[in-house]
């Protein structure tokens, strides 16, 4: 079986260091990059970053959320979304990274490291088209 070091263990270690020594951020990022290049695991970059985000949430309650919406978010929607996410995940702090994609037709998709909230019209139409 493969003897690669576990991605989650790597993420946990790096995340711990980043949280413990915020001033050393550049150093630890360089260490992680060097490891990935050396171990030929650069294609796992997105997954490692996601695991680190998960660790940030586990250890500090800081939730990183990618929100893609059909139209720019209004303040009201933004606040409601934050409320919903806070109650669903018990996070202490929520960071929204917003993106606009008209292809969604309406609504939004919010992605956390472990879960997603999909209330886009595009997905609803897809589900409607494929009901048996």
């Amino acid at each position: 079986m493969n003897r690669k070091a576990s991605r989650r263990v790597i993420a946990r270690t790096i995340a711990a260091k980043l949280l413990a020594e915020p001033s050393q951020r550049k150093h630890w990022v360089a260490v992680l990059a060097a490891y990935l290049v050396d171990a030929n695991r650069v294609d796992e970059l997105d997954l490692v970053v996601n695991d680190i985000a998960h660790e940030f949430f586990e250890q500090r309650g800081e939730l990183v959320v990618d929100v893609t919406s059909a139209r720019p978010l209004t303040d009201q929607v933004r606040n409601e979304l934050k409320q919903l996410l806070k109650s669903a995940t018990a996070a202490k702090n929520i960071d929204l990274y917003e993106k606009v994609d008209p292809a969604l037709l309406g609504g939004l998709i919010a992605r956390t490291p472990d879960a997603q909230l999909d209330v886009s019209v595009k997905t609803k139409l897809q589900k409607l088209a494929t009901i048996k």
Partner: protein
Amino acid sequence: MSELKVQELSAELRDAIQSLRTTKGLEEAGVVTRVGDGVASIYGLRSAGYNEVLEIETRDGGTVTAFALNLLEDEIGAVILGDDSQVVAGARVTLTGEVIKVPIGPELIGRVVDPLGRPLDGKGPVKTKQRGLLERKAPGVMDRKSVHEPLMTGLVAIDTMTPIGRGQRELIIGDRQTGKTAIAIDTMINQAKQKTGVINVYVAVGQKLSKVAALVERLKREGVMDQTIVVATSPADPAPMLYLAPYAGAAMGEYFRDNGEHALIIYDDLTKHAVAYRQMSLLLRRPPGREAFPGDVFYLHSRLLERAAKLNDELGAGSLTALPIIETQAGDISAYIPTNVISITDGQIFLETNLFYQGIRPAISVGLSVSRVGGAAQTKAVKSVSGGLKLSLAQFRELASFAQFSSDMDAETKQRIERGQRLTEMLKQKQYEPLSIAEQTASIMAATKGAFDEVPTEKIKDAQSDLISLLEDKHGAVMKSLNKGDKPTEEQEKTILEAAGKVAKSFASKKTEKVKE
């Protein structure tokens, strides 16, 4: 343009609107990182359980089901139940929170379905009130009762010498084309013919669909299909479907067992099942063991076969009898999978190729076949006449090589050989013609008590059918009473032997063979 029924359209619209209204909220989602050969590697879904059903979103917006078999630290290995060509890396995956369930219940009787309960016979959707777990724990020791009721196969060779009881597991093992499925089919036909009320479940694991179609056709013709469920998978189905098929069949059979009824399940065959499981395990990168099978291939079959049981009276006294089939290569019953399954089952019926080609069909090897339940599950009628049968045949086999020197032997040896030849001939049976208890009892009684000793060996089968017709015509009451299963009275025995004598005389007078003195 097909007709649109307004009510159906309205109902469909209502369902669609309902599914749009229910938003799932924040739900756990993972992503497919790698997919190929029916296995998807999934990132995320940290709370996925073993064997949990997952839904993978496909390119065209639909979903395909998979279940999680490898829970590794960084990823989940899931086998895809269906077409993996629509799954791409980057696809979203969600949990369902459930393990696999299949429809169970009497609504399945008469249907041909796939392991997930989807219909294959074009008779419309399968709607059952209940769904049962595919993987279930077998009943414990205290929930069981010892096997004491017979399951008549209708095949004289089996019912006399290796009798099967309700709740037993009897393995049918032999090379290819030796008549393994034929025994299973005849057993199913007999349940309908003798109106035993036993529900048949036939699980085709990786069998040619043409073979399954022919089998269903034959069952329909014999009037058995209305007490049979067929679970079919073809060699073209993905390996996970072949892996699930026997368990699905077991779940369907267990419904009857747990509700005080009796069911018979045939797994045709478990060799293909083990091969499909090996394929899945190797693709999941599990370490290969002997013959490249994974380490838990014994558990694969043991947990399946333990579900066939006889329950105690408190639980309804129902039963599930299993007839697993294993195909050997060149008669090697000491290979890996055959020895595994032999050690699990309560006996085996061993079919030999050379017996088959000698014309002895069913090609059952009397010496190597055994039933570990034996007499406890035999009808008293058949038991009373089969006592000397196995011994006579064993003695015959010992002396078989001397048969060509019949002129040089003492009378006793000659008698043993001639009796053995007649018994062997009597045990031959045509396919699709299972015999009732009375017919079996009468035939074997006539042969073992010497009534047919003067009939030429090649005419024994004709003598048998003449005897049976004579008894049905003139002594119908005796046959009816024997069919109840009780030991024949002296009166009845006399009647049968008298009739046998009459039949034998009619053949002796037509004898063309030179009498050997």
